[in-house]
């Protein structure tokens, strides 16, 4: 499998973890690298949220006069969907780790389906809000809404692509226990996207 | 001219006065600075001089050490084997850093705080009856608006000029700045002060001239292709001359102001932010 991280030769072992200390160390390094990567991405989203806070603080009212409040029902459902997808992915990962690799593809599929549903609902929300007259170019309110949620959606798509890349061998019947670390790194990204969404949901829709 | 200085004050002030005096005599123009014709410009200049003396001393000491080391401790001499981590070494570093920090930085900070509170951000109150002027910066000119005899902006008697600011001498001038397009910066070299004109908000600046004459207004924030040409003229006049100009300008304004032209009514209520 193509990977940014060379985890060394695939070691097919009966246990869930590669026994060779070298490979275990490689895993930890990859984990550290991924954590740092997510740290940098956190800083980028922090910049975006900071920007949101600043423009919102500048505005005399929020939403600005004339702008409708954003819907909250569907976005709340979306939050549940995404949280659910993180849960299914975590469950699948656990199966992989405890040696029940055959259960993994099912959980992975559930995750992907929930992720796709999230996107579909998000598109629906955009369309309905747009019909209501709020566009990216109508003002700061639209800018924040579309800017942040679109940028997040790009990351959901990226996450789905990564999960899809894992799904291919998983559904082809390959045992991914040996590639546990790679799956775990991908899961880290997915959970990150989920956490960002929760913050976005609370700050953009609720507050 | 009261100054707050740390323990280094006597040395710094004496050197400062000595050097400044000699420099002024030598160049006649205060080290190439534009003539200071402002009430508070001396703050900037004097603090600059104090800083210069301090940093020159530090820099010369540093160079001295380097040159001495290169001369006396060159290849072939006996090198001391020391890691510099002992208590005395740390103490030495702490003491030297503290002297520099509290001596130099401390002096600068204390004086800057005073300057800020006494002058730069100490805007004239209504009681001091400042001349209030609104400036709308745009690509690439300074649109200037006086409230006129009714004291209100955006009315028919407003004097509106382009790049032409007249002020009376020895009177505070309070300027509010806005921008029509991009960020500009209203810069008065002879007053040692500038303030950005930001679109979407209003910024404040004040100054007071101590001599009559003409000074230039520059733009100090890159604002496009003709940023370099965004020049205005500040004319400082005696009260009598200013009044003459003012009367003529008001008469002219009543003729020229077209209240139905919304574009030209760019002024704003003085109190709003």
């Amino acid at each position: 499998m193509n990977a940014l991280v060379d985890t060394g030769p695939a070691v097919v072992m009966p246990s869930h973890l590669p026994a060779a200390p070298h490979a275990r160390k490689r895993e930890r390094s990859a984990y550290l690298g991924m954590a740092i990567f997510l740290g940098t991405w956190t800083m980028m989203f922090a910049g975006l949220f900071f920007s949101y806070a600043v423009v919102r603080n500048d505005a005399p009212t929020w939403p600005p006069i004339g702008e409708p409040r954003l819907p909250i029902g569907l976005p709340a459902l979306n939050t549940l969907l995404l949280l659910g997808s993180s849960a299914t992915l975590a469950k699948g990962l656990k199966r992989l780790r405890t040696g029940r690799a055959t259960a993994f593809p099912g959980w992975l599929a559930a995750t992907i389906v929930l992720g796709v549903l999230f996107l579909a609902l998000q598109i629906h929300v955009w369309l309905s809000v747009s019909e209501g007259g709020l566009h990216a170019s109508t003002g700061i309110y639209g800018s924040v809404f579309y800017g942040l949620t679109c940028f997040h959606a790009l990351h959901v798509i990226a996450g789905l692509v990564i999960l899809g890349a894992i799904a291919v061998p998983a559904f082809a019947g390959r045992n991914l226990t040996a590639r546990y670390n790679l799956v775990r790194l991908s899961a880290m990204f997915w959970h990150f996207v989920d956490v960002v969404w929760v913050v976005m949901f609370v700050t953009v829709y609720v507050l | 001219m009261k100054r707050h200085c740390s323990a280094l004050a006597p040395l710094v002030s004496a050197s400062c006065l000595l050097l400044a005096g000699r420099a002024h005599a030598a160049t006649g123009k205060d080290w190439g600075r534009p003539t200071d014709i402002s009430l508070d410009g001396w703050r900037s200049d004097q603090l600059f001089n104090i800083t210069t003396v301090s940093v020159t001393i530090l820099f010369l000491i540093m160079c001295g050490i380097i040159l001495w080391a290169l001369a006396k401790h060159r290849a072939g001499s006996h090198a001391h084997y020391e890691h510099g981590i002992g208590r005395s070494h740390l103490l030495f570093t702490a003491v030297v850093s503290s002297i520099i920090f509290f001596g130099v930085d401390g002096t600068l900070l204390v004086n800057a705080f005073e300057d800020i509170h006494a002058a730069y951000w100490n805007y004239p109150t209504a009681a001091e009856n400042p001349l209030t002027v609104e400036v709308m910066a745009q690509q690439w000119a300074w649109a200037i608006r006086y409230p006129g005899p009714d004291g209100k902006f955006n009315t028919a008697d407003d004097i509106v000029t382009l790049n032409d600011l007249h002020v009376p001498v020895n009177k505070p001038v309070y300027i509010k700045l806005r921008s029509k397009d991009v960020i500009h910066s209203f810069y008065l070299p002879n007053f040692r002060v500038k303030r950005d004109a930001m679109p979407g908000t209003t910024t404040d600046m004040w100054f007071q001239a101590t001599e009559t004459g003409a000074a230039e207004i520059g733009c100090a924030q890159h604002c496009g292709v003709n940023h370099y040409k965004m020049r205005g003229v500040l004319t400082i006049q005696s009260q009598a001359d200013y009044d003459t100009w003012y009367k003529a300008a008001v008469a002219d304004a009543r003729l020229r102001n077209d209240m139905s032209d919304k574009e030209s009514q760019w002024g704003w209520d003085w109190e709003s932010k």
Partner: protein
Amino acid sequence: MSTHDEAHDSHGGGEHEEQHIHPEPTSFIRKYVFSTDHKVIAKQFIWLGLCWLAIGGTMAMMIRWQLANPGKPFPILGGLVFGASGGVVSPASYTSLFTMHGTIMIFFAITPIMIGGFGNFCIPLMIGARDMIFPLLNALSFWFMVLSSCVLVGSFFVPMGAAAAGWTNYPPLSVNIGTPGLGQTMWVLGIFLAGTSTIMGAINYITTVIRLRAPGMGYFKMPLTVWGLWLTAILNALFVPVLGSALILQFMDRVLGTHFFVAGAFVKGGGDPLLYQHLFWIFGHPEVYILILPAWGVISDLIPFFARKPAYGYKLSVFAMSMVCVLSALVYGHHMFTTSMSPLLGQGFMVLTMIISVPAEILFLNWLHTMWHGAIRTPPPMMFALGVVFVFGLGGLTGLYLATISTDLYLHDTYFVVGHFHLTMAAAVFLGSFASIYFWFPKMFGRQMNMGLAKLHFWLSFIPINVVFCIMLAVGLGGMQRRLYDPSVYTTFQSLQSLNVWISRFAYLLFFGQVFFVYNFVYSIFRGEKASENPWEVGTLEWTIPSPPPHHNYDKIPLVVTGPHEFNNPAVLKATGRDWIAQDVPIPGDLPAESQSA
């Protein structure tokens, strides 16, 4: 293979991961083009950086030409580059010139040379590793830089030309109000790609230093070069993404019509141009430390190396560099004293900016103390290192004027600032880059550069640099603003014109003086005298292996037992007669290696 139990590593705290020896690639493409070998990638970055340095330098010459000879056609290239205006730099071209000069020098010259180049070359070698921990990511980092360069080059050839809002790129000038045109958007994209490259590199460097230090190399046995580069990587990882967020918002404003930085009418909530400045300088101030930390690290090693004395106050220097990093994002508002930012916030930034000068002072004290009572040799790397101390000392001190609000209200956006940041950033890093090149060239290429030419290069760089930027300080004191196409518009500054002419003359001298370096560099790669394993007689790990190192660097991962600057240790002198010892050689008379702690 590692001979140590992974769970209990008594040599240098923490776990050590050891890399396999991979077979060396054989095809030309895998060896020199799409290589994952950090040494090759380092050279690729250095070549890329040097090419951009030449381009950025040429732009500087064009700027200086216009300032000294307003309205005269630029020699030789004028007709080609400024054809539409008869060979003369036009006001529009001028705005692109200073924008791209700054952009290129920061993102495409310094970053690739010091961080991409020397970061890549030095870190694995100096910590005793075989390569970076993520070699493929490393290669990707370089090729993203290439992609970014292509976008930037492309931006010159689109209608309305390249970006023109200053390298600082403030909106609303940098959004469609001020600079419509594809070139400006391409700039945003290009910088985003460059930032991505930097972040990839940062992830690599940080993880590599944490995970791949040789057994025995605790953090406080690392050379200070590695410390400088590691802290740089941490700053990069933290703050380049913030620039990323600013660029994303700006891209959206330009392309999707959003209003993040576009100020609305005064009644409706609009965007905030000042927001960009906050975002930009939260990145921008750490960025200047990102640019200088590698040079600080390098000279913190070179000075002990050539003074033949241990680095004075090693741990304190590490602490000082770390403190600078921590404070770096807290001082950024000193770029914004003249804006609508609240005066209270401004005063806070002023105090913090003063405080950040303390760790820098400590670094200086340690350098000077290292030299004191040393046995100082002054080959060209040391000359350049001392040059860095000189210009950074000068430049850093000029920062005091700008940190103080009273003086900054006058000096902001004048040539005083230009002089200050060129001394601290350009001059110091420029000289630091050459110190690094002259020092590591033997290890990189297995050959020596000509030291006579190097000395000539030094003087032809050092003297003009100081003249150019010190006179700029004077021009700034005279009040002349920066980014002015033609200062003669202002009668106030006419007396400064002779200074401008002299700056330009010395700038030309600086530019042409580099020809001695270029010739020396290129010639020596092919025809230079063969270099020995350790021509400088220093103890860091890279000098214990052949020049150039084999593909896998170390046949056997070294076991580190000594610090990086053990010079003139009496026990070593007595036992070996040499004044230096390698990091993997026990000091005679010391306890055996196994019982040494980090």
